[in-house]
């Protein structure tokens, strides 16, 4: 997931380029232009003749159309993308949806409500080797960029605008403490603190002392680790790498469930600042 997050950042730039490139194929919102391999859910368009008269006392003329891509997702529904090969799916901005992949045994039966479904609980059987389950996390409008692994042509990619949980446009994001997108955690985080223990300052000692007895943070399902810059622990080395954009001591806050980096920041100056930052992220137990 870490690699996914880093790729995500790289593709944010790519995404911006694609947006400005008039030659890039962008599926129009009311036309199905996906390649045959990727199955993005669609919904049928209701024909005029099917609309009750009382809803449209003066129906305007409307051309006949085919099905449309799903463009909204609420918290109860799954949006399932199917593909015979692995996909890279990038969500912009991050955090409005959660995307889980599955390439396990097939066929796979899934019971639930679907974004392209009837609004009722259904049981569906999926046979495609690669499935991507998208579910709503936070209201707003977002886009998904879907690229098959090994794609050599931009026409093999798809872009879809999705209104998540019925709200658009997005509410203004929180002020960014550092570069990069800022997903919202699921409630639990793992915190890595990277320091040069040979240069521990009084403020750091005060904060670490407070953390040592902050039982409610861990009791709520969060975790934290302190790493010296000389560590050879794999997770510590990763934390050191992640902290390169920050002065030391640094703090890397990850979503504990997805392992996505939420913040890379200098260690807060005091305990109250730390609690405020975690509280803003919606971390449980703060």
């Amino acid at each position, binding site marked *: 997931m870490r690699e996914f997050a880093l790729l995500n950042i790289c593709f944010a730039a790519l995404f911006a380029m694609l947006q400005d490139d008039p030659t890039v194929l962008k599926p129009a919102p009311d036309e199905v232009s996906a390649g045959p391999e990727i199955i993005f859910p669609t919904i049928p368009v209701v024909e005029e003749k099917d609309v009750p008269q009382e809803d449209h006392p003066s129906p305007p003329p409307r051309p006949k159309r085919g099905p449309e891509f799903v463009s909204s997702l609420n918290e109860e529904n799954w949006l399932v993308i199917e593909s015979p090969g692995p996909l890279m799916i990038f969500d912009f901005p991050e955090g409005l949806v959660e995307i889980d992949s599955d390439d396990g045994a097939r066929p796979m039966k899934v019971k639930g409500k679907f974004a392209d479904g009837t609004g009722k609980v259904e049981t569906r059987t999926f046979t495609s080797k690669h499935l991507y389950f998208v579910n709503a996390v936070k209201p707003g409008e977002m886009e998904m960029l879907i690229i098959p692994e090994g794609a050599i042509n931009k026409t093999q990619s798809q872009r879809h605008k999705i209104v998540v949980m019925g709200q658009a446009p997005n509410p203004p994001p929180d002020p960014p403490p550092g570069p990069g997108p800022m997903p919202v955690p699921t409630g639990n985080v793992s915190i890595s*603190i990277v320091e040069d*223990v*040979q*240069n*521990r300052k*009084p403020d750091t*000692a*005060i904060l*670490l*002392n*407070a*953390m*040592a*007895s902050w039982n409610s943070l*861990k009791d709520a399902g969060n*975790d*934290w*680790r*302190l*790493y*010296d810059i*000389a*560590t*050879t*622990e*794999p997770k510590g080395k990763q934390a050191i790498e992640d902290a390169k954009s920050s002065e030391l001591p640094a703090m890397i806050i990850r979503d504990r469930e997805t392992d996505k980096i939420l913040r890379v920041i200098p260690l807060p100056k005091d*305990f109250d600042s730390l609690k405020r930052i975690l509280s803003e992220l919606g971390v449980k137990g703060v």
Partner: protein
Amino acid sequence: MSEEIEQIIDETGEVRRLGSLAPPEGFVSAFNTFEQEHPVWDDADIKRVILDANRTPRRIVFGKEWIQNQKSHGSCNGYAGAGALSKARYLRGIQDNLKLSGAFIYSLINGGQDNGSALESGLKVIGTHGAPPESLVPWNMIYPKQQPSNAKAEALKHRGLKCYAVQTKQGFRTALAAGFPVIVAVQAGSKFQRLNAQGIASADSGGGNHAIHCDDIRIIGGQEVYDTCNSWDVTYGDQGRVLLTWDSFEQTFGRHKFYAVASSEEKE
């Protein structure tokens, strides 16, 4: 040989062998000194840290369940190191309450005899071999042949990463304020076993015959004291702990080196 180290009978009647051996005259530690490697804080900084409102005294963080018992062996040095390393782990966020084995550390530095050891030797083991859980190598396994075959492999999972010889009183105070457990030598006599109303023991006369670890620096009744953990079970002192003033270290500090365990490392 075994008659060479001192022993006393503690308040509960248990015979305690006092196994902290002073290094020879002119001994130079193989470890970098704390003062060379870490800035030494001034009094104002130390006071600011230890009086911070969010600071929980270590004796609350590390309650009586952390107190170990070396019983009748002269393994205090191993236990002092194991206690310091266990707490260094915890203070890194590895809060699994794992107590490491003092008997294991002692087994690698006692030369095959229950006749005490030097603090520096124990610290070397912490950095190179590490220490396994005490549940795997309990107090009575003070020789490698008594230990399970996986003891060394388990020990390597928990090692000291950065450990320093503490050279000065200010360095000692800084290390404690910074949150680093410090292995110290004390003179364990009758005064060491008697605590006043504030939980402070006064100093016995002597150059240091016993090793313990210190995990806090506090100000009690206007006096700076050092909170220490003995390895004589919770029946000793105040639930296994005793507060000492600098007087208790004045004589031992020159003869023994003290050692700070600043960081630890885990191996899967």
